[in-house]
């Protein structure tokens, strides 16, 4: 077995440290929001996980195209890794958002464009894994996966746009203001520090998990090849 590369080990350690610092900044350093109180602190991790999840889904759509052009299984491994990590991050985003919405919106869930699109996006990528599970041939699995991830990556933003024809109550804290949004607030300088550090920390964590997952995929393939060799 190959040893874990040193850079990856450093990344592992770094991500633990930066997420630790981000937690400190979000829970202690950032000032308490006046209206919502402590529950607003969820915001830092909510944005952090959402950003990295969307980054991963975007990367996955890119890997779809590169795989379909080159037919190199390397891109498939990258795609699975990106989607798997993003799926978990996005789930965390939704759960955190729900916890925040309970006291602020007085409900766990509303059918707002962002929330609905988030739920549909999760379902698209769960379907992606169900599709992959049903196919044994790795080459076909990669092709179908790439096609479906491409369709999903195209349809999710259209869904968002479509639902936006209705009203939204989701606050937009960074850029843009919606008078009908509920639970919006103005950020102080310290809040900004906490937010940007959270974004940075989750990006590092994402890269680390992504890298580990890609490595796992490579090892899985190797095991599979060795098994084939033994059985022959």
């Amino acid at each position, binding site marked *: 077995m190959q040893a874990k590369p040193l850079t990856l080990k450093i990344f592992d350690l770094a991500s633990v440290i930066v997420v630790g610092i981000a937690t400190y900044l979000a829970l202690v350093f950032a000032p308490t929001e006046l209206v919502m109180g402590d529950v607003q602190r969820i915001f830092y991790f909510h944005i952090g996980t959402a950003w990295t999840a969307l980054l991963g889904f975007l990367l996955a759509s890119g890997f779809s195209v590169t795989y*379909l052009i080159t037919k190199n299984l390397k891109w498939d491994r990258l795609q699975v890794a990106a989607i798997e990590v993003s799926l978990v991050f996005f789930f965390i985003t939704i759960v955190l958002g729900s916890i925040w919405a309970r006291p602020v919106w007085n409900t766990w869930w509303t059918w707002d464009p962002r929330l609905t699109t988030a739920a549909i996006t999760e379902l698209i990528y769960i379907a992606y894994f169900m599709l992959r599970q*049903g196919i044994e041939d790795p080459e076909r699995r990669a*092709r179908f996966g790439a096609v479906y991830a491409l*369709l*999903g990556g195209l349809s999710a933003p259209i869904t968002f*746009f*479509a639902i936006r*024809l209705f009203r939204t109550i989701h606050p937009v804290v960074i850029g843009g203001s919606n008078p009908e949004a509920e639970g919006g607030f103005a950020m102080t300088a310290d809040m900004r520090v906490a937010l940007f550090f959270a974004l940075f920390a989750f990006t590092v964590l994402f890269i680390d998990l992504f890298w580990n997952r890609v490595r796992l995929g490579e090892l899985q393939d190797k095991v599979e090849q060795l098994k084939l060799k033994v059985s022959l």
Partner: protein
Amino acid sequence: MTIKVSKAEEKMPMADLVKDRPSGRFIKAVAAVVWKDLQAEFRSRELFSAMLVFSLLILLIFNFALELDIKTRQSVTAGVLWATFAFAGTLGLNRSMSIEKDRGCLDGLLLAPVDRSAIYFGKVISNLAFMLIVEAIVLPVYSVLYNTNLLQPGLMAVILLGSAGYAAVGTLLSTMSVQTRTRDILLPILLFPVVIPVILSAVKASGGYLEGLPFEEILSPLSLLIAYDIIFIAVAFMVFENVVEE
């Protein structure tokens, strides 16, 4: 005997003309696939009757599930119709592709020396045709049962656009799903989350027509529907090669 020969001779130059142009050849291949599907269906009537009875049953279930009295009918008709079309559509898509797969017809089709996208468009058009035929029966039945006039040109245009988008994505995904282990179960799971923009904008536009809203208010869901159709037909056309490669 002599008459037959002369007829064939008469047809020759026309056939050559069509053969020489690549676009003519493509259209001919698409038409052949559509014709094959329609003829097979005309002989067995398996798919059509199943889709039709299924959609009527869904209408029946909605009748009890939603208590379609006059007040609620106004607001939910568009939703009930599209839910019916979506469910009946998956039934048709699944069947039309699994027939190809089971009897080895898909391999035969792929061996034909035509562009793969011709096969795709042929299947889309025949799937769309089945959907439209079923819809053409469901609409008047719904109109009679619930005493609402659904036979409006605007609504028909929405139904055509919505079904086209649904069939375009559905054909691509059903080609993939029949090649997996889980087969039929997988299609709705793959299709529904991706096709939600179609359902959403089609329900909005149909509802708009039924409520008699001015055209400006229907324009945005309608244009979204057209945009979705164009984008997804183009993408499916580009990637179809990848889902039938052996």
